[in-house]
């Protein structure tokens, strides 16, 4: 095939030919080329991760009206390398009673679960890891590996606060998987396919126009899945020191931190793929590899949205987090899925498909807000009614909670 229209695949075919020319049989040459492709993808993603450390610090600095690192290298670009060197030369502390195998395996598993997500993300029309036809389900499954690594980290540290922090984090993560799955099912219903590349290809109109409420739902549940503010109770320094990675020092902690940043960027990539059209953009039909640029721009915007939310909102308490999920998001997500499926069927062949879906989403959101407003008003009246009665009847202070 032509090199310029499909460079990566052409390089792969050439490499397989080279290996077969050296005498390997075709199967093994194919597998070796696939391994080299995986290595290349992981290397690019990890280098990206290094620059995410810089991006994160610049974003938080600008939100807090200061400059961020700007001494080490031009614009502070060498700062992450300085961080890495510092983390590598730190002492590897193993507390007493720590279960060494599990303790060492947990950060590795965490990073692994994030890197596995990149296998199904479509970076360009011709550049993706594997065109899995159950890509959406694969994303959910791999996310649960991250949950496992948090339990392993918390338990093996032989520290009650680490265990408590990891229990809370895992409870939040497995609770918010349900609205996240439903929010990912909505693009599946709209496009009729479960493969991520196929969903991107079906987005003639971006799904953020067709289902903005699904985007909001995914944003909220993804923020909880990532353990980022405002859902980061386990990393709250004043409450649990550092949650499941209290006892980790040096590069192991660096792996947790880098895995969290990369996870956030990967979810930015998921938002780009599912709601913002993935690699779609001007001139992609002529130059397919330009899709890579559009994808990364959209993923960075998604990453910036996560940073925006994190550095603006205060933290939510753990029981309110779980209340929000089970009492609001889960019923909301199921009703939203049914509603969007219904509107999709009704409006699909008409001429005002996009505008109709958008307006019906706005209507649904407004109805939800009205219901919430009435419930809140009712509860506030009940509370104030009780307080008023207490003031009238007795002078002692009665707490109604």
């Amino acid at each position, binding site marked *: 095939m032509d090199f310029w229209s499909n460079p990566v695949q052409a390089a792969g075919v050439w490499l397989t030919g080279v290996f077969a020319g050296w005498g390997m049989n075709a199967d*093994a040459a194919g597998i070796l080329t696939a391994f080299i492709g995986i290595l290349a993808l992981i290397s690019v993603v990890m280098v990206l991760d290094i620059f995410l450390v810089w991006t994160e610090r610049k974003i938080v600095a600008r939100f807090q009206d200061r400059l961020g690192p700007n001494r080490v290298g031009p614009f502070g670009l060498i700062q992450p390398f300085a961080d890495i060197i510092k983390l590598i030369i730190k002492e590897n502390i193993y507390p007493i009673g720590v279960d060494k195998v599990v303790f060492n395996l947990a950060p590795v598993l965490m990073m692994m679960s994030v890197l596995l997500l990149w296998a199904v993300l479509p970076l360009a029309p011709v550049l993706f890891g594997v065109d899995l036809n159950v890509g959406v389900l694969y994303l959910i499954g791999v996310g649960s590996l991250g*949950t*496992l690594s948090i339990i392993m980290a918390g338990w093996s540290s032989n520290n009650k606060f680490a265990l408590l922090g990891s229990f809370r984090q895992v409870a939040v993560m497995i609770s918010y998987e349900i609205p996240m799955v439903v929010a990912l099912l909505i693009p599946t219903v709209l496009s009729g396919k479960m493969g991520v590349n196929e969903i991107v290809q079906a987005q003639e109109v971006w799904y953020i126009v067709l289902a903005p409420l699904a985007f909001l739902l995914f944003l909220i549940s993804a923020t909880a899945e990532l353990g980022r503010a405002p859902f980061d109770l386990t990393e709250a320094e004043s409450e649990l020191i550092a949650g499941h990675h209290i006892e980790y020092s040096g590069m192991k902690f660096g792996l947790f931190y880098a895995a969290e940043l990369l996870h956030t960027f990967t979810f930015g990539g998921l938002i780009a793929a599912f709601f913002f059209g993935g690699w779609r953009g001007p001139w992609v039909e002529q130059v397919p590899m330009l899709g890579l640029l559009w994808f990364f721009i959209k993923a960075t915007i998604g990453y910036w949205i996560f940073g925006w939310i994190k550095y603006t909102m205060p933290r939510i308490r753990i029981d309110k987090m779980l209340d929000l999920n089970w009492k609001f998001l889960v019923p909301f997500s199921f009703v939203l899925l049914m509603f969007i499926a219904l509107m999709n069927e009704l409006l699909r062949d008409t001429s005002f498909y996009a505008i109709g879906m958008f307006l019906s989403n706005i209507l649904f959101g407004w109805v939800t807000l009205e219901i919430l407003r009435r419930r809140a008003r009712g509860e506030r009246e009940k509370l104030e009614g009780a307080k008023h009665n207490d003031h009238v009847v007795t002078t002692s202070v009665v707490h109604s909670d």
Partner: protein
Amino acid sequence: MTAMQIIFLITAAVMLGSAFMVVTTKNLVHAALWLIVTLFGAAVLFATLNAGFIAVIQVVVYIGAIAILFIFAVMLTRRTMSETGAGLNPNWWLSAAIAVILFGGLAWLLRGWDGFSKAAPALPSGFDSVGALAQALVSPEAYVLPFEVASVLLLAALVGAVYIAFQKKGEE
């Protein structure tokens, strides 16, 4: 030896090894982690059998939910952080004998069946197993009734588990 056969043999060896560790190790959290390795091997086997959906569901349901439930249960039912206690019964040799006899019996019975060494039939081209599975699960001529009954079962299990393990505030 084709590549698929090598993959199968490696996966089978890993699965059997980790299953053996599940039933013999004294540290229960390690047993749960070895179970996760076994379940992952099973997911790989499902993928080699062209049942991609079942493979991913295996990871999501078993590793993502059931294994985490096991780890939580192990952590909540121990008196100290590192208590293990005796792992096996006093009569474990009898159980080992029963297991070996069962395996031998199954293998010997199956060998007499003529379909034992069958090769896999080719999948029809363009066969969408996910779509066909979806059709089978919701079409009235196929399996919609067991599907709905399974969801009622899950609801009953959900309510039952919450009720059994529930602790009112202030109760010991």
